[in-house]
């Protein structure tokens, strides 16, 4: 699959899982890689970029095991961006399935 295309999907998935609850970096990577085949090392740069764009905000939380952890929390901007992505994605997928279904009928 085209790398840029895949990165776009991973970006949307990160937005989606962080819309459910706040997570720390490794938790995001771990959750994603359990569900989809993702190049793990691309996740942190995406997280950092989306944070820079204001879609997430970060805060530190003390842990029992050592140094405080950085958590990512979705902002209002992030939520509206996710909605926008979901709408685009569903309409795109519908189109793709339509095409795939059409080609199946023909053959």
């Amino acid at each position, binding site marked *: 699959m085209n790398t840029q295309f895949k990165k776009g999907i991973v970006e949307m998935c990160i937005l989606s899982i962080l819309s459910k609850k706040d997570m720390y*970096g490794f*938790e995001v*990577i*771990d959750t994603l890689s359990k569900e989809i085949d993702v190049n793990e*090392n691309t996740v*942190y740069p995406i997280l*950092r*970029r989306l944070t820079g764009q204001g879609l997430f905000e970060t805060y530190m939380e003390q842990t029992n095991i050592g140094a405080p952890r*950085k958590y990512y929390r979705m902002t209002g901007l992030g939520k509206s961006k996710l909605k926008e992505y979901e709408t685009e994605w569903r309409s795109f997928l519908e189109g793709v399935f339509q095409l795939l279904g059409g080609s199946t009928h023909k053959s």
Partner: protein
Amino acid sequence: MNALKAALQNYRASEKDLDEVFSDYEQLYEDAKASGKTDEEVWQMLGKPEEVAHDLIDTLQLKKEKNIKTKIIAVMPFVSLIIFFVLGFYQNLWHPGWLVFLAIPMSAILLQTRLKDGVVALMPFLSVIIFLILGWGFDLWHPGWLVFLSIPVVAILLNTHIKDLPIALSPFIAVVAFLILGFAYNLWNPGWLVFLIIPMLGILKGKNIVKVILYELSFLIAIAFYLYMGYEQQAWGYGGLGFLLPVAMGLILGEINFTFGRLEGVERKKAITMVMLVILAIGLFLALGFGLGGWAWAWQVFLLIPVTAILLFDKFRLTALMPFFAVIIFFSVGYFFGMFHISWLAFLLIPITAIIENA
């Protein structure tokens, strides 16, 4: 982490961004290890430093210092000109006041090059300054020009793996030793023997200890024989025959045969060419030495050996050949025209070629 740091510093990321990224990566590393991942899995998860740095580019803020550095570089020609005029008009120091113009390229190198490359690029300028101080200040034009050998030596010191350093530096050590023996003691012959440290150090890299000892012994015996015949019997020519011993050693130990037997086609032809060239170079060197008394300069034929090896076995790159051409130009112009104080300029060809070829 260090590799990532180096990769990010290449992009001139701000300290704030660097600290943040490292802290995040340390956290990722600790969390991944705590989850029971193996080192290899963690390594895979974190990714190759260069790729990560590339992916992070658009999240990094460039250093503000970059702008300040650019401004300093832009202003330097004007500052130099003002200092030059002030020194000239008020102190009548037009000469050596012109040296301030060296600040223009030096500031650009210092401010825009990574430390290691910067040091290499600065060496020609530092050498000029030291050379002129030695010349004007102490009338040591000769052997002050030797300072220019620091240009290739520093480049080699900073770019060569420590275990290859003795071999890489040996040609320069040999040149300096040879020139000192020649100019100071008029020992051009047998002073040229110092060049034998180049193959003798190269042989030390061999894995078979017995062969290494035999080769080294054959060289030592050949040298001893040459010196004995020359000094005791006044027969340098016959003494030269002693150098057939290292060649014979190669044949006896089967090294040359073995190499030819194993290779086929073009590789075989290349190997034969190299052996022929070595024999030809030795023959030519001895002929020029005895025939024309050219011990002082005939050693340069040996530079044909590495040059041919590069041409035959590597992809053609002028950068790889230039150090050898530079040594030939440097020595020939210096020796034949007595212009060592100018001929060092040939060493500038090395970085110039590298810049043009890698641009």
